[in-house]
């Protein structure tokens, strides 16, 4: 299945859905993500596999963030039919880029 490159912003306190749950029998596979604080208010970012926190970063300053490129053959496979969620500690804008694909679970 083809990879999708996604770029947008999130700014809600709590859960922000970056990639919606793909449906029964499918899973999201992440190859790369970058999240960057675009606001000047310190913000903690938690990247979640559905409801499970997986990566966390406390971005103290504008421009701080979280980035990970998964090596070929070892992408981040989310739980079947789970959404990719960015949880923010406050309603502060964060930009993000995600490269992912949806595969059969």
């Amino acid at each position, binding site marked *: 299945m083809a990879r999708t490159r996604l770029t947008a912003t999130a700014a809600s*306190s709590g859960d922000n859905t970056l990639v919606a749950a793909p449906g029964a029998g499918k899973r999201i596979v992440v190859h790369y993500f970058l999240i960057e604080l675009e606001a000047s208010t310190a913000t*903690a970012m*938690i990247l*979640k596999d559905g409801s499970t926190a997986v990566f*966390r970063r406390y971005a103290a300053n504008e421009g701080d963030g979280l980035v990970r490129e998964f090596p070929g053959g070892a992408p981040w496979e989310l739980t079947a039919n789970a959404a990719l969620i960015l949880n923010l*500690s406050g309603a502060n804008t964060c930009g993000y880029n995600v490269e992912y694909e949806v595969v059969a679970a």
Partner: protein
Amino acid sequence: MNAAQLATLRAELAEDPAGLGYGALGQDYEAVAAALNTRPQVPNPEKQGVVPRGLSLLEVFAAVRPGEALAIYERPALLADVKAAIEGDDRSAMAALLGLVAASGLVSAGSLAAVQALLATTMPDPSWTVTVPGSSRAALLGLPAVLAADVQLVLNSGGN
């Protein structure tokens, strides 16, 4: 926060024993942190005290016999100091000047006693308030000031 403090916070948010309504705040972590950090107003445990009552120059001179007051008015330097002490509510300066005029014989014992009585008058402490800030819920739990990120962390399961 350390692990024990996070565990305390987790239990507090889950049980809400004080009924602060964390559940209704949902994922507004800043609002939850604010609820924990707010110091509620509680009745002031201290009784309202009294403070020396502020005096005016006219009040002080009204307590002194007219002839004696006139004698003070005829000494501009002394009058200026008396005025400054009264207007600045400088009690130690007033006491010193009172001693000075008493020693110089400018005022009689009767006038001196009247001014001393005036200086001893008090009024309720205007800075006293019926309520004062009490302890925050966080402080009652032995927690430092709670950050939105602390709330976020305990409301989201841990990962790697």
